[in-house]
Every structure is written in C-alpha cells, then in structure tokens.
C-alpha cells in the first residue's frame, strides 16, 4: 500500500515529462548538455571572461529595471537620482551596484577581447563570433556613455559635453549628427530624455539579438583552442564535461564576480555630485570614464602637437584605423591552421593593449 503511494507521484511526474518531451524535445537538450565537453588546459582561466561579462550584463538588466522604478528622465532627472541615492531605502546600493557593475562589465569585455585575440580564437570558423563581439563591445561603450549622463550631476554633464566633441569632429557631417544626437547645440534635459531612450530601449533592443547570436555561435562551434593546444595530438588533450564540471566552474566565477561587486558597491558607494549648472565653469580635473580615457588623451595630445582642426582629424583617423584593423584581424591571420606562426596579430594585439594602457595612464597622470 505504502509503496504504491510513493510510486504514484513519480509515475505522474514521468508522464508529465513524457508529455512535454514529446512536444519540446527535452531529452535531446539534456543529452546535448550531458555529452558536451569543454577543453581543459593551462589557459582555461581566460575562457571564463565572456561568461563573466555576461554575468555583469545580467546584473545591469536587473539593477537597471530597479532604477527604472524611481528614475525620471528630463528636467527632474537630478532630483530623482538624489531621491534614489539618499531617500529611498537601499537606493544607494542599487545605484552603486549598477554603476560598479557597468565598470566591471566593460573591464571584463576588454579582458575577453584581448584573451580571444591572443588565443587566436577569431580564426575560422569563428570570424562571426569576433565581429559580433566587436559590435557588442561598441554597444557596451555606448551604453556606458549614455548611462553616464542620466544622473545629470556636474561630472556627467561635462563628460557628456566633452564626449560629444568626438563625433562632432568627424569631417563634414560631424556637427549635424552630433546636434541631432544631442537634441540641440548644448547638453540639456532634451539630451537626457533621448539618452534615456537610447540607454533603456534602443541599445537593449540592439544588444540582445547580437548577444543571442554571439552565444549561439559559441554553442555551435564550441570553445576555441589556443594554438599550443591545437598542436597537440588528440590523445594528449584534456576535456571536462560541460555539465556539471564546467558549469560548476563557470558558476564559481560568477559567484566570485558577485562577491567582488557586492564589496565594491557597498564599501565604495557611487557618489552623486552637484546638480549640473549650464552656466557654471567646468570643475578642475574633469575627465571621462576610464574606458574613454585613452581616446580622450590621444585627442588632447594631438591637439597639442597639431594645432587647429588637424589634431582632431588625425585623432579620428587613428581611431578609425584601429577599428578597421580590429575588424580585419581574422584576415590578417592567413595561416589559420597554425595560428602559432601568426605573429602579426600578436604584435598588433600587444601594440593595441600597450597603447591603451599607456595613453590611459598618461591621461590620469595629467588630470
């Protein structure tokens, strides 16, 4: 009697599973997860950074929705952020988590970019993964730039003013485009309203499909191998099961990321400056967020070396050239079978990385 009682729910559960399986093909998905393996080698650490970027993106969505509950774009923007920071319970923590997670996400995305570059993971058949990744990087930086204005404190105001000078320096159409994006000739509540629409509607609408495509490609092609591993015969390569081994490690990384975020957000809460005043002069040492510091410094230095519009034009030319090189990376690596010999890409990567770090430090030095 007792046995039949405990058997009954199990049978029913199995019946429900069979019913759903017939329609959704669950067994296929479970089989895939069970048989999927992931390469394991001494560079494995660098293969977690895409996942870490994804984790911070999820935090951004979650904390962003929470901020949306109280944030008011337009003329009331500063006051609403002041209320979130000082009035609403734990509002300071939600805002701090959103800001810190944004910075950590940009950092993780950069680490991911350079890991992929140095491990040569952009090679055939993964070119589209590389390109969709570059688009995601660009969108991430526009996310950062548009979100930075939304509190409308003095730092946000001047950073946006200065930042918009970069597209404005594009020859011929720069001014026109910038005025449309800005909603006038100066940053105002009109700018906040459209940056807000960009930040919470347009960018997510663009980002999520590219992210889906990017993740689909990772599943389709599996994890890439660094050239040194590829050179080994199959028998010497090590693999771990995707589930539960790799999954557990991935979640472990997410847990570490969550803890770092929690420590930073709670011990170093994000500050809110004075309300932006369009008639006040810029505060001393005004500078953009660290991930725009390199471009900021290059423009500044070029302006010093080449007076007038020439400096800006040369700066833009350099940025464009760097972008073109990044896009063309998969084609600069012709010996795709032995990426080991593709020294060119390694040197380009090192040049970019050192250039970024050097100009960033230089920029902070001069602030």
């Amino acid at each position, binding site marked *: 009697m007792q046995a039949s009682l405990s058997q009954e729910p199990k049978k029913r559960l199995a019946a429900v599973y069979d019913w759903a399986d017939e329609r959704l093909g669950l067994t296929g998905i479970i089989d895939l997860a069970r048989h999927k393996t992931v390469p394991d080698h001494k560079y494995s650490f660098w293969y977690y950074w895409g996942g870490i970027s994804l984790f911070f993106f999820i935090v951004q969505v979650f904390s962003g929705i*929470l901020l949306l*509950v109280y944030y008011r774009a337009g003329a009331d923007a500063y006051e609403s952020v002041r209320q979130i920071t000082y*009035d*609403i*319970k*734990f*509002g300071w*923590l*939600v805002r701090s988590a959103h800001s810190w997670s944004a910075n950590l996400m940009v950092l993780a995305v950069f680490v991911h970019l350079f890991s992929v570059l140095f491990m040569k993971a952009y090679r055939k058949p993964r070119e589209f993964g590389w390109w969709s990744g570059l688009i995601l990087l660009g969108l991430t930086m526009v996310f950062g730039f548009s979100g930075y204005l939304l509190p409308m404190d003095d730092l946000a105001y001047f950073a946006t003013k200065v930042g918009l000078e970069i597209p404005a320096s594009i020859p011929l159409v720069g001014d026109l485009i910038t005025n449309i994006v800005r909603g006038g000739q100066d940053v105002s509540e009109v700018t906040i309203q459209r940056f807000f629409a960009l930040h919470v509607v347009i960018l997510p609408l663009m980002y999520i499909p590219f992210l889906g495509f990017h993740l689909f490609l990772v599943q389709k092609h599996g994890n890439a191998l660094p050239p040194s591993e590829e050179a080994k015969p199959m028998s010497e390569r090590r693999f771990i099961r995707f589930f539960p081994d790799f999954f557990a490690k991935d979640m472990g990384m997410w847990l570490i990321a*969550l803890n770092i975020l*929690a420590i930073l957000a709670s011990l170093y809460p994000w500050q809110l400056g004075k309300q932006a005043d369009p008639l006040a002069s810029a505060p001393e040492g005004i500078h953009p967020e660290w991930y725009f510091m390199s471009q900021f410094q290059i423009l500044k230095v070029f302006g010093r070396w080449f007076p007038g519009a020439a400096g800006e034009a040369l700066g833009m030319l350099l940025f464009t050239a760097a972008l073109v090189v990044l896009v063309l990376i998969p084609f600069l690596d012709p010996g795709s079978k032995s990426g080991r010999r593709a020294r060119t890409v390694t040197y380009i990567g090192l040049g970019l990385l050192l250039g970024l770090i050097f100009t960033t430090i230089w920029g902070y030095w001069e602030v």
Partner: protein
Amino acid sequence: MLNEEVVKNIIDSADEDERDVLTRREFVWLGGAAVGAIYLGAIGYPVYEYLSTPAQRSAEAAAVTQTTLDNAANLPKSSAMMFKFGARPAMLIHHEDGSWSAFNAVCTHLGCTVKYEPEQSRIFCACHGGTYDPRTGANVAGPPPKPLTKFNVEVKDASVIISRA
C-alpha cells in the same frame, strides 16, 4: 594504515548504526542550500525594502490622527472641499445651517472618490451610483456595503481641525 581502518570503521558504523547522521552528500547539499538562501536573502531584502519604500511612507502618512486646514472656515455654506487625510482623499462639508461634517471620501464599494451634491442633499459616487447621507455618512442607496468613515470637525478661528473620531 591502522588510522585509516579506524576512520573507515567509524564511518561505517555511523552509516549503519545511526541513520540520523548526515551523509557527506546530504551535508554538501544542505550547506549549499543554506549558503544559497543567505545570498538570496542578502539580495532579496534590499530589493524588497527598495521597492516597498513608498508603500511604507504611505502607511506612515495614513497613520495621522489629525490635520489642520488653514482658512477652511471661510468655506461657503452648501459647499464642500476636498483635502488629503493621511494618504487618502477626504471631504469637508459646510452645511446650509452652518454645521460641519467631514468624511473619508473613498467610496466603500470599489474605492472611487465620492462627490458632494448639495442640490440633491447627498454624497454620490459616480462609478456605480452609491449614495450616502451628507450629515451622517450612512450608505442610503446603491451598492456601498458600509457608511463613509466620519471625522471630528472643530472650527478654530479661520482654521478647521479634522481628527479621527
């Protein structure tokens, strides 16, 4: 060797003799679940407090027992004025004979705000036709199940002081 055997014996005896003792697998699961619960709580509590701040504030506002309406004594006879008592709308009526009444202005039927109609000598809810007596607040017609809550009214110089009955 000896030590290993002793430990193995202890584990075996624990497994066989005392069924109440946790197995290693159960211990790991339980520990994991406990840590998970702590994380959920550490995230869930701030989020709950963050989202419920306005509800808490409004509950605090609703707890008021008295409010003073400046210059309300000038209200013409046979008319009413709306004011906020705590978080909700309320109504002060100056009757034709010079007496005063004040009520919670939220219909007891489905929560619409009611309206004073001096020519019909009634308080009326436009949503479903609920009707109340303008002096007592009694529900006299329509769907309302309960009378409107009546407040105490005290006229002091030009001000009117409203308090819970």
